[in-house]
């Protein structure tokens, strides 16, 4: 077995090895005969009909079809593929099995005509020439075929011609005349008068002219060892018995002409030969008349009576075929060394090509890692001699000459020395810049940090303890975001310490979140609180409406930013100046830019080039066909737009992901009637978040988008103002945020509880999605939808209340009120100070994409007018009922501001 161990010898394996037997393997039950199945290459069962009914079935149950039925060659429209004519070959109707090795038309590799046929023809010609001599009828060997053979020459002939060979010449080195003459003695294929002429020329031939060798047919002369008469063709038992095929061995008993044919392996000669016993030596039977020409071929003219005189005319002069050549030619396919098939016209190489020896790669050591470490170049002057020695000993690459290492290895003071500059007056280290107090504080921070890492109980100062208690409390509250806690504890304190000093200067603070004004505002708030020494500055300044994860991340960012950009001493900050040109990241944004251009164009009513974009778009082929339109891109296989601009924050990119916190938080607030004023501030962020672009035109009387733009611009301006003036933190924006933060503080605990509950119980939508039947289309619609539909499906009992509302404000109440609480919320929004609304606007505009996942479907399209049947229903039934619908009450309560209500309703 070949799979035996790794012995050095190579074995050739035939067949599939048996599965190795294991001793303790249970004896497997042999598969009974009737359950054994045969499958073909395609995995179809081959059913055995029985030997007399056709053996294995073919195709699909002896049909040409398949399991799917018979598919005709598909119709090809002549419209697009006019030029393509179906060129059907017999192979098209054959199965794959037929092409296999044992099929009816096995595919084999054959040399192309260029290489094969020419060579064959040449051989055939010669063989024919030889066999013609031996033929019964002279010139029987397909003279006509030769005449009408196609004028095609093989590459070999072509090459020979290019090399100067001409038809009729022999192949070989050119010869002197003398030698040729010598050749001539034995006669040549040329007609006798030609040879005479050449002999005449011979006398005048110059010395330096050489001639091509004669083209001769190789002939081997075999001695006549038998006692038959000349020209007697003995009975070849193989041919006589209808074998027809030549045997491998050389038959000494055949005529030389026969041998020649077999030598060239001419197929035709075998076919031409008549089977059966056909020897002439048997004479003529008594019943036959042909007795005149017994020795048909044996005339004296066939014999040479002059040695070296007249040409026999058979053209078989030249050279005797060597024995080796004969053997080799005879059985090219039976080479012992090679087991495969040899192509026609090819022979095995006589010399084995040198096998390239491939050396295996070197064995890598086990701990080798394919990374190169650049060892630090150590200046000997700066390193202690012992270390230097050690380094030198270890790798011998310690740099001896410092200046040669280049300017990068020098520090500023060294460069300064070399250049002869006067050193800067300022202190050399950052620490020197700090005041003693600050330095102390820094040390304290370091100490506090290390201590905190050890244990919370070992705190030295009361301040730290309080802070840590606060942070621990925060940590308890933020159990969800535990991954942010590690930094929150220690770094918050450091930040607090860094910022709570008098040195902090608001005007010089860095703006790390400038591209997100809201975030920056929150960060500013945090910084201001830090300055005031507020311990839980971080928690209070974060937006409560954000998710826990977002909050955690922002917390992390703020603390880091605060540490990174902590206030510096005036002497240090004096070394740096603010850049004059602030890089306005928000105005650089390209897409925004484009939108602005478009908007401006729309505003100026300059539709056309500015507002039009044209893309390449590939319709589906079938679509083109259905529209009776030729495919604009016949070659391409892409469908749709080659490069698709996709909105990153499209609602439908998030269709599958439901933000549980968003959804669940939205649900209770919607169900809660906004009765108490205390819940209102909690709801307002919801309202602002719920906005989509649809409500913009309704809310602002002027052009909504331009208003929005101006708003954002003004806010950017405000942010800039803030940076310019130290007291800019008193801008209304921040105040609002601050108050917001305080409110969240009050509510953090109950919120946390809520969230904990939500964590336990997945949102209702999930249940709906799982358990709602497919026919229940309601499940996909939002709560707003539900309320709307509830009304539609609701029994007429609840209608009278609506009718009463309608009578109070006829034009408005004709429209149904899908979510009255939202309306109310909106009212409050409208009545709030403008600063807050703007803040909300901006907030919503920035956070809308992220939050839109939780939004209702209804908000993304123009709303449909309310069904008119309600009105009808009202007319139909006037019976009153017990009031369960609080919505209608709300409606009554806001009747006085019906105008406003209508507007807000249109928005939502």
């Amino acid at each position, binding site marked *: 077995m070949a799979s035996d161990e790794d012995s050095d010898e190579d074995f050739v394996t035939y067949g599939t090895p048996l599965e190795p037997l294991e001793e303790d393997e249970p004896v497997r039950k042999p598969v009974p005969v009737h359950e054994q199945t045969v499958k073909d290459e395609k995995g179809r069962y081959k059913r055995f009909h029985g030997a007399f009914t056709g053996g294995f079935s073919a195709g699909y149950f002896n049909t040409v079809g398949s399991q799917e039925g018979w598919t005709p060659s598909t119709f090809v429209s002549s419209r697009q593929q006019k030029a393509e004519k179906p060129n059907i070959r017999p192979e098209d109707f054959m199965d794959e099995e037929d092409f296999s090795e044992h099929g009816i038309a096995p595919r084999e590799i054959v040399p192309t005509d260029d290489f094969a046929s020419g060579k064959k023809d040449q051989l055939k010609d010669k063989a024919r020439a030889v066999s013609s001599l031996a033929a019964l009828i002279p010139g029987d060997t397909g003279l006509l075929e030769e005449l009408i053979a196609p004028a095609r020459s093989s590459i070999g002939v072509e090459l020979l011609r290019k090399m100067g060979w001409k038809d009729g010449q022999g192949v070989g080195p050119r010869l002197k005349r003398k030698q040729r003459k010598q050749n001539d003695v034995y006669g040549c294929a040329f007609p006798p008068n030609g040879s005479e002429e050449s002999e005449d020329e011979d006398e005048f031939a110059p010395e330096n002219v050489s001639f091509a060798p004669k083209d001769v047919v190789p002939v081997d002369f075999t001695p006549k060892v038998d006692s038959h008469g000349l020209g007697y063709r003995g009975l070849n038992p193989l041919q006589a018995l209808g074998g027809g095929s030549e045997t491998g061995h050389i038959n000494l008993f055949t005529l030389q002409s026969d041998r020649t044919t077999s030598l060239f392996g001419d197929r035709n000669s075998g076919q031409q030969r008549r089977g059966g016993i056909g020897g002439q030596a048997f004479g003529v039977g008594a019943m036959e008349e042909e007795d005149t020409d017994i020795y048909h071929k044996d005339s004296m003219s066939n014999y040479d009576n002059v040695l070296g005189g007249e040409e026999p005319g058979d053209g078989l002069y030249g050279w005797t075929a060597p024995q080796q050549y004969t053997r080799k030619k005879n059985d090219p396919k039976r080479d012992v060394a090679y087991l495969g098939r040899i192509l026609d016209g090819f022979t095995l190489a006589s010399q084995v090509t040198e096998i390239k020896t491939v050396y295996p790669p070197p064995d890598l050591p086990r701990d080798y890692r394919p990374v190169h470490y650049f060892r630090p170049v150590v200046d000997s002057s700066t390193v202690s001699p012992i270390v230097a020695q050690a380094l030198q000993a270890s790798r011998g690459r310690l740099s001896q000459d410092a200046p040669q290492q280049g300017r990068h290895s020098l520090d500023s003071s060294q460069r300064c020395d070399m250049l002869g500059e006067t050193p800067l007056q300022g202190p050399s280290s950052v620490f020197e810049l700090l005041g003693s107090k600050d330095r102390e504080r820094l040390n304290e921070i370091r100490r506090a940090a290390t201590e905190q890492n050890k244990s919370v109980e070992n705190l030295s100062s009361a301040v730290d303890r309080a802070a840590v208690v606060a942070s621990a409390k925060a940590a308890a509250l933020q159990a969800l975001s535990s991954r942010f806690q590690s930094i929150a504890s220690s770094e918050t304190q450091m930040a607090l310490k860094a910022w709570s000093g008098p040195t902090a200067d608001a005007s010089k603070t860095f703006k790390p979140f400038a591209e997100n004004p809201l975030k920056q505002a929150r960060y500013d708030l945090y910084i201001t609180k830090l300055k005031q020494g507020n311990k839980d500055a971080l928690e209070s300044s974060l937006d409560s409406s954000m998710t826990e994860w977002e909050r955690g991340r922002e917390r992390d960012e703020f603390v880091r930013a605060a540490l990174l950009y902590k206030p510096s001493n005036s002497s240090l900050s004096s070394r740096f100046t603010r850049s004059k040109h602030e890089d306005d990241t928000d105005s650089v944004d390209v897409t925004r830019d484009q939108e602005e251009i478009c908007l401006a164009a729309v505003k100026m009513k300059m539709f056309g080039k500015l507002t039009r974009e044209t893309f390449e778009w*590939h319709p589906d082929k079938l*679509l083109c066909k259905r529209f009776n339109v030729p495919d604009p891109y016949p070659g391409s296989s892409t469908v749709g737009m080659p490069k698709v601009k996709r909105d990153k924050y499209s609602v439908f990119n998030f269709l599958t992901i439901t933000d549980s916190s968003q959804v669940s938080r939205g649900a209770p607030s919607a169900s809660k009637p906004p009765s108490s004023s205390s819940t209102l501030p909690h709801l307002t962020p919801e309202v602002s978040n719920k906005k989509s672009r*649809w409500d913009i035109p309704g809310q602002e009387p002027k052009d909504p988008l331009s208003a929005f733009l101006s708003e954002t611009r003004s806010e950017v301006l405000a942010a800039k103002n803030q940076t310019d003036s130290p007291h800019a933190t008193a801008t209304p924006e921040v105040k609002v945020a601050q108050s917001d933060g305080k409110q969240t503080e009050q509510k953090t605990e109950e919120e946390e509880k809520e969230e904990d509950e939500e964590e336990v119980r997945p949102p209702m939508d999930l249940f709906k999605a799982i358990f709602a039947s497919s026919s229940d289309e309601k499940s996909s619609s939002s709560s707003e939808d539900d309320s709307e539909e509830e009304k539609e499906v609701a029994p007429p009992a609840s209608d009278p209340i609506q009718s009463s509302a309608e009578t109070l404000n006829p034009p408005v109440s004709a429209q149904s009120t899908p979510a009255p609480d939202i309306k109310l919320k909106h009212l409050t929004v409208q009545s709030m100070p403008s600063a807050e609304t703007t803040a909300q606007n901006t907030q919503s505009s920035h956070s809308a994409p992220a939050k839109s996942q939780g939004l209702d479907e209804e908000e993304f399209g123009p709303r449909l007018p309310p069904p008119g049947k309600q009105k*009808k229903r009202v007319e139909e039934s006037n019976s009153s009922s017990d009031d369960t619908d609080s919505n209608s009450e709300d409606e009554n309560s806001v009747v006085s501001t019906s105008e406003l209500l209508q507007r807000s309703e249109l928005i939502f």
Partner: protein
Amino acid sequence: MAFPQPRPQVPQLPQHLLRTIECQQGAVRAVRFNADGNYVLTCGSDKSLKLWSASRGTLLKTYTGHGYEVLDVDSSFDNSQLCSCSSDKTVILWDVASGQVTRKLRGHAGKVNCVQFNEEATVMLSGSIDGTVRCWDTRSRRYEPIQILDEAQDGISSLKVSEHELLIGSVDGRVRRYDLRMGQLHVDFIGSPITCVCFSRDGQCTLSSSLDSTVRLLDKSSGEMLGEYSGHVNKGYKLDCCLSDKDTHVLSCSEDGHVYFWDLVEVSLTLKLPVGKAVVQSLSFHPTEPRLLTSMEGHVQVWGAEPETEIGEREVVVGGEPRTGPAAVLK
């Protein structure tokens, strides 16, 4: 012809109320003429689709099968098939005569706002709130769309199909025109969410109404604005707009209960047709005659150029014409 054509008449506007059809199917979300204008299709919010005779106002057939309110309908050129779309996210292909559902196609992720056949009714195109337009093959049994056009960044509110073009209005404030012949997509930025788009009947212009209470007529090839029509109210609802039968006037629904007629060339308000008190949500103009359908709440109104009696006489003429499609079924 021996005589020259008479001077073109001053186009008559359908300003006389011919009849009011109480549809009894909740709010009528959309009202459409069929391909030849002899029949009326109404989409009800009670999940039903109804076929009416335009001349007599009688109910001919009710098609039930949608799971939620029906939002749009279109009839095939030979009146043999209808396609409708619904809030239940499906598109249904109906057999007009039998009233059976031929095919119910699911695939949209949200409610389907608009649906249209192509010219030969081989493809149905449906636009949904999920921001995609899906092209459904009516010839094959495949339940997958041939192609999904998802270039819109917000919901699709309206779509129209011409010979080789798809006009699609989206809530992202853009009108997209897919040219199948050229293999191009033209995007026109309007700014405000689009509620309805139309081709002009000569196929050279596109009409789009948007939520900034403006209807704009744009040149199809260049995208330049040819006219801007305003005065109506369209701020929250998906309202229809259209062109009159001879492209002489631009019509739009309004939230103030009127239908506004503007002269297409002069951009002046020609007529403010009072329909009712509520929002006129949908309208449809007769393909060849000055006839108009409007839907408000639960009823549909048929408007004609001349008062009822005269129309009645003409009705006979119309009735004498050979009819195709549903007429055979209805006897």
